[in-house]
């Protein structure tokens, strides 16, 4: 009886699992199909990948997207880490809670609201739409996630560590660069990775603030998908699937490293 119930359970999970992955596998499989529709598999070919690598416009867009992602997550990590340190240093609980609430606004707001309000903002300040506005938006919506990833790490750090460093004559800069930052590094790394995926994934906000000249990969996929099936997009999705895998594995290892690091520290404290 229990044996049979166990199988039913697994069946349901497998079903959910298959439904979740089928569309993604479907996309990647058809990137290798001859012909130009996603209906019947016409035999294996690399030609869509060749088209993809010959498409200089798309490669330029890909590089732009990557540049935006790297720059925005670097800057967001810097600002977010400083913000998390600042939030941690606040003494009054009211201030702290207000700051955390403000921090979370961009995390709960629908993308459309963020996009529309940023568009009004950039227009009001006469900031031209394009690379700059997209970069600023990506930095802006990545900062809160960095704060949320770094803050627990800072709170884990004991104040006696800072006091000891200050007593030994460390100035502010030394305190930050040689004591605090090394300690919270795993949090900073996870923040950076999350910011990276936020930026690479974003469509709606970019769509609002991108203007005419500049495009990211998501926006380009959207406009091509509106024109119908094009197996070059399938090839692109194959590559992006690979990239997502690399990111997941990278994130997994950072997490592993940080948890190992944490147990080490705890072990030493004992």
């Amino acid at each position: 009886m229990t044996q049979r119930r166990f199988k039913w359970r697994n069946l349901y999970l497998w079903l959910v699992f298959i439904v979740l992955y089928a569309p993604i596998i479907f996309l990647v499989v058809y990137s290798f199909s001859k012909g130009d529709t996603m209906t019947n598999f016409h035999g294996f070919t690399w030609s869509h990948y060749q088209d993809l690598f010959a498409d200089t416009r798309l490669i330029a867009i890909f590089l732009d997207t990557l540049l935006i992602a790297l720059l925005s997550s670097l800057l967001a990590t810097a600002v977010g880490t400083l913000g998390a340190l600042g939030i941690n240093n606040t003494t009054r609980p009211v201030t702290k809670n207000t700051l955390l609430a403000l921090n979370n606004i961009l995390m709960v707001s629908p993308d459309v609201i963020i996009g529309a309000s940023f568009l009004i903002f950039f227009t009001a300040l006469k900031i031209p739409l394009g690379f700059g506005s997209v970069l600023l938006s990506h930095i802006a919506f990545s900062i809160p996630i960095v704060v949320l990833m770094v803050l627990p790490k800072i709170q884990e750090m004991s104040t006696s560590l800072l006091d000891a460093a200050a007593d030994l004559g460390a100035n502010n800069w030394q305190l930050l660069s040689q004591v605090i930052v090394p300690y919270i590094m795993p949090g900073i790394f996870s923040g950076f990775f999350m910011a990276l995926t936020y930026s690479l994934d974003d469509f709606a906000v970019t769509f609002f603030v991108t203007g005419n000249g500049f495009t990211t990969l998501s926006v380009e996929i959207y406009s091509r998908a509106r024109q119908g099936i094009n197996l070059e997009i399938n090839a692109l999705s194959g590559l992006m699937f690979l990239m997502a895998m690399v990111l997941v594995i990278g994130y997994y290892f950072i997490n592993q490293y940080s948890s190992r690091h944490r147990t080490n520290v705890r072990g030493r404290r004992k």
Partner: protein
Amino acid sequence: MQRKQRLSRNTAYFVPYSLWILLFVIAPVLLLIYQSFFNIDGQFTFANYQTYFSSSTYLMMTVNSVWYAFLITLATLIISYPTAYLLNETKHPQLWLLLIIMPTWINLLLKAYAFIGIFSQAGIANQFLSFIGIGPKQLLFTNFSFIFVAAYIQIPFMVLPIYNAISELKPSYVNASRDLGATNWQTFSRVIFPLTLPGVKAGIQAVFIPSLSLFMLTRLIGGNKVITLGTAIEEHFLTTMNWGMGSTIGVVLIVAMVIIMWLTGGSGKRHTRKGLTK
């Protein structure tokens, strides 16, 4: 001396972050509200709100949008609750959870694009329908396809908070309930479900709010038959260039968001949206 040092450190940390809060959190929202009081010619007016609340088109659109978001959330919940429950019973729940969350790392547009192929006239879904004898149907650009794809995209965001709630549930409560003679159904409805309700609420919050604003899906999958609040905002900002009206709808969306957060309780922790943050 040390206090002074601490203070200067504080301000140094805070300059870029406070600037961010001022410029990118507070200012845009205020500007959006401000903009909602201007008509297309740039004159100050309350007309946008008047139009919104007196026009049956806008009101019907809002009701429709909330209705579809409700259906999407319900479909997601019905699939996700058993999934989260069963996940908790497996031998390697963390591994399964990772596998459920992984699809969220694939670009949303690509997943939507996949369904254009799957639901197309001669696509694999119609081939299946023909195979089991129902015959091909118009699948793409229907309300059904919109709800299906939206639910597909949102499932991981619902599973994660519910799983977290279930995994924190102490098995001793369930055992106690069984020992006291409760049936399986009573145990579930009186013990398990109420105790995991916070997770369900968090999941509803994480799914309902984005469902009001998924404009790319209404365009790519819904074929413009479903107009959500998000679609209307996008239309007003980027197509008809009537920013005042767009902002008015934006304010309505913000109010809807606040109501949902108030109903589901607590500040939104959508950083679980990406999963893997545990």
